[in-house]
């Protein structure tokens, strides 16, 4: 390609993006940064632009905040668990659905359905699902382990509660992985598949050695996009467990939400958010570097 891009491309690829992002997001974001460096809460009775300067006090407090650190760890575990499970399931589904079969379109429509529901709704449904009076205990588990199932209180035990929100996330977001992987895998040019077939490769071999390697970049993009969203998980924790029992399932987003709304501790919440932002930014930058750029 020519070194210098044509004028039309430069305009089209920069100006609209800048207008959009700067117009909408920059100013509120700047205010957020400001808030993190002052000490302010609506309860203080003064306007936010009159708040006293606080330097790094908020940030220091965050680094010593056990509840925050616990939430971070918890959320990190959540992300690793959900993204890897969703990736594997999505991959499995893509492999299974690569060939044609009767009713395939309907199957795909059904598999993708969870994405069409608001996360709050999914959270509500799973909340009802795992209640003592819900179908998980009364129908499914009863079928497997009998009457003992009725004694399981999902939301009262930290591990079980964690599992419930894991399941809700997996249920809703595996289709996301599936869609990206499936569209990438089926977009591999047919001639590579056919060349491998003629040379004697089985469809299993072709899947692992031809299709998958050719969409490596896309896989990395899918993982990072999903991981970013997973880290901000809120709805499931809020509706299903309320962060409980205690704070056993309190995710970072839930904690920040409580700081802002329940405790009205706005500047502290802002500083915590910025720390989270920074951490995620560094982690993803490293991920991108190692996986995407080295793989070129």
């Amino acid at each position, binding site marked *: 390609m020519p070194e210098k891009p044509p004028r039309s491309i430069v305009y089209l690829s920069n100006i609209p993006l800048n207008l959009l992002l700067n117009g909408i997001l920059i100013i509120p974001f700047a205010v957020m940064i400001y808030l993190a460096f002052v000490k302010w809460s609506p309860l203080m009775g003064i306007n936010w632009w009159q708040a006293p300067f606080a330097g790094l006090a908020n940030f220091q407090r965050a680094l010593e905040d056990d509840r925050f650190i616990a939430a971070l760890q918890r959320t990190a575990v959540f992300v690793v668990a959900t993204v890897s499970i969703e990736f594997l399931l999505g991959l499995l589904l893509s492999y299974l659905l690569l060939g044609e079969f009767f009713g395939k379109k309907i199957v795909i429509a059904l598999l993708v359905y969870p994405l069409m529901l608001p996360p709050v709704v999914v959270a509500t449904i799973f909340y009802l699902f795992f209640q003592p009076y819900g179908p998980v205990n009364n129908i499914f588990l009863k079928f497997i382990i009998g009457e003992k199932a009725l004694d399981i209180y999902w939301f009262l035990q930290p591990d079980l509660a964690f599992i419930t929100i894991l399941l809700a996330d997996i249920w809703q977001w595996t289709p996301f992985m599936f869609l990206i992987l499936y569209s990438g895998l089926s977009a591999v*040019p047919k*001639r*590579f598949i*056919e*060349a*491998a*077939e*003629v*040379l*004697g*490769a*089985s469809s299993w071999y072709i899947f692992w050695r*031809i299709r998958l*390697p*050719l969409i*490596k970049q896309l896989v990395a993009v899918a993982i990072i996009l999903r991981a970013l969203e997973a880290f901000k998980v809120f709805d499931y924790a809020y509706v299903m467990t309320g962060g409980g029992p205690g704070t056993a399932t309190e995710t970072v987003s839930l904690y920040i939400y409580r700081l802002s709304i329940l405790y009205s501790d706005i500047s502290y919440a802002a500083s915590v958010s910025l720390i989270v932002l920074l951490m995620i930014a560094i982690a993803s930058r490293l991920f991108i570097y190692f996986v995407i750029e080295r793989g070129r």
Partner: protein
Amino acid sequence: MSNIVLRLENITKRFGDLVAVNNVSFDVKRGEVFSLLGPSGCGKTTTLRIIAGLEKPDSGKVYIDGEDVTYKSSRERKVCLVFQEYAVFPHMSVYDNIAFGLRFKKLNKEEVSKRVREIAELLDLDELLSIRASKIGLSEQQRVAIARCLVVEPSILLLDEPLTLLDARIKERMRRELRRLQREFKITVIYVTHDQLEAMMLSDRIAVMNKGRIIQIGSPKEIYEKPSNLFVATFVGSPTINLIEGVLRVSNNRLMLSAGNGDILLSDYIEKPEVFREIFNKEVIIGVRPEDIIIDPGGLLQGEIRYIEALGDRMVLHINVFKSIMLRVLTDLYTRVSIGDKIRLRINISNLHIFDKVSGERIINMR
């Protein structure tokens, strides 16, 4: 049967309403280079894919080495296909590309390595073995694709327009390379192309196809000298054959063609006029190849040069004979002529082609 490596019987393949391959049958002998020649969309690539096992025919049978493989997948057939765009695996090294097919044959590492290196050396790829296939040039990619196939020792090597993507100079070289490889490996090759020159130069036998059907099968010489119909006559041969419509008449042993505007005297002495009896007063199309029209001061035809085309080491003169008839005449560069010259021509009647006007089929061949 052991001499025939491939047999196609009544193969038909439809895509929706389009009949891509229409009742195609032919045999291919062991060790020969057999071409499927025809314009785009004539069904040659689809036929090749059916032979490879990538498409299943709607009806008909495919036999390879005597075995009915019609319903066998491509991995079960002992064939290998070199795609038009080579389909070299971009994420693998050249070595891994070539070794690909061998991995399914239960060979140990040393054996694989030996074979790959042998082929790589033969095809001048030994320096590139560790390089990623996406980083090498087009003609190298093609050699990798060919090496990939040769190394698994298929019964038939299928090539789909292999030279189309290369530029002219490399084409020349690859043509010779392919011929050399084929002779060395004594491998049966089925070659698909739309370039008649390629087919003529490389093949032992050619099957000319159009609109899904086989029009004629023969050696390059046969196809060229005895085209079975108008399509083959015009498709093969460069510059294109001259065609004149009219009615043939013989009087006093003189052969004339009454063509619209008047009579063209083709020859003033015919030995055996009876040969033409069945086509007297029938509407025909005469075909004369440009090299069969000779500049002769004593010739029977007179015309005026309208246009001169230089073709490297030859010239094509476009000569107007008789109001609206233009003839292409092939001559060498030494002939001194210019536009506007009036010139006399003689037609070599022993190479005259006569076709039925309605069906396009050959009626008589002068040989």
